[in-house]
């Protein structure tokens, strides 16, 4: 069965083509979809391709950094931390030049690996996502978008263009093309610290327990230990690592990310 491809040439056209998303598969760079098709995935898909919809730029204006959903991940490598470092950990340079930010945020975790490894740094940066779908457009914190992304077309993400210190600690993948097993991201802006983890749960996860502990004066190590509460009941068990392992290593990664905040501000 032949696929049908929709190639909108503007944002407005993309929104109109997407509608409420029914029966559509959104194609960013293809780096997640194509392997699934090659492995015997569905044929005859109806695909909305964002490559020419004008959603591939990065801009800094009005105190915000805005990244189009179709922006290649390679374009993030020189942006703000901890996003830049996280982006450099994605696959290899050729895949980074093709894979898109929107794809990374919208892709579902697979049975083998958590994927979505840019979600946590964006949460740490207090990013918002602008999306369209049933009920029209909306802009919301990226963690809220992640919780209700079905039937939504992500258009862009934005985060405040301020100076901050950041931390990123990762349990490395064994091979360039594996996703990181887990990573912890932290960003401190005007005394407020945001913490998020990737690879622990179904999506990138904001660690409010860690943040609250820090706010109430806990040491970094004590606060980091609280990450277990944040991901309790949601820990992934997959080909990269067991839930048992993740539960034990995650606090260490959070502690390392927090320690980098102290080094950064010193």
């Amino acid at each position, binding site marked *: 069965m032949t696929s049908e491809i929709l190639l909108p040439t503007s944002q407005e056209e993309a929104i109109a083509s997407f509608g409420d998303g029914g029966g559509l598969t959104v194609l960013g760079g293809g780096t997640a979809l194509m392997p699934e098709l090659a492995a015997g995935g569905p044929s005859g898909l109806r695909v909305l391709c964002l490559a020419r919809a004008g959603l591939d730029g990065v801009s800094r204006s009005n105190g915000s950094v805005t990244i189009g959903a179709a922006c290649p991940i390679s374009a993030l490598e020189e942006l703000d931390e901890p996003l830049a470092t996280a982006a450099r950990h994605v696959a290899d*340079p050729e*895949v980074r*030049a093709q894979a898109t930010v929107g794809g990374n945020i919208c892709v579902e975790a697979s049975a083998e690996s958590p994927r979505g490894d840019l979600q946590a740094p964006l949460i740490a940066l207090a990013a918002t996502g602008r999306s369209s779908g049933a009920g029209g457009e909306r802009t919301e914190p990226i963690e809220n978008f992640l919780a209700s992304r079905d039937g939504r077309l992500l258009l862009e993400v934005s985060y405040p263009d301020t100076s901050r210190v950041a931390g990123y600690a990762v349990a490395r993948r064994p091979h360039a093309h594996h996703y990181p097993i887990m990573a912890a991201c932290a960003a401190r802006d005007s005394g407020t610290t945001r913490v998020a983890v990737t690879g622990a749960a179904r999506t990138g996860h904001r660690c409010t327990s860690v943040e609250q502990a820090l706010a109430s004066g806990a040491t970094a190590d004590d606060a980091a230990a609280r990450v277990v509460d944040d991901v309790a009941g949601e820990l992934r068990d997959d080909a990269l690592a067991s839930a048992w392992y993740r539960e034990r290593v995650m606090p260490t990664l959070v502690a390392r990310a927090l320690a980098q905040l102290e080094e950064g501000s010193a």
Partner: protein
Amino acid sequence: MKLTVNGRAHDLASDPLRPLLHVLRDELDVTGPKAGCQQGSCGTCTILVDGEARRSCLTPLALVDGAEVTTIEGLGDATRLNALQAAFHQYYGAQCGFCTSGMIVAAHALLERNPAPTRHDIQTALAGHICRCTGYVKILDAIEAVARGETFTETNGDRQPGVEESVAKTGVSG
């Protein structure tokens, strides 16, 4: 959909989601790019799309409509090797040969944007390319040799140097 491959224009009516790798190999008979994993994880299918290195197995045809595609075959042939091809030959960067076309194409893209890469730059650029034979050292040596401007005498493939010639060159006799 229109596609130019190694300077030749093609008009294609294939499924828009068909991987460029299959279009090249099965429809256009351009077999230099190899199907090593079809998961984007091995690098053997790497080609240039408008001069940038891409995995052809990850690239649906729809994304390259109107693009200029260059494969290993477009970089040089046996009678006129480009510098990287000559260097891979001379430095034994190719062993079984299956990863070689992807390696050379990726190295070509690197040198186009960074003519003087460090060894670390080369390693980073080739991070997605798997070679199971060489252990990579000879591949890195070959690319470094081109980057430092070494010239290669073995550019004429019509004439494989025989044993006598090689012995004379290396000064070893038996």
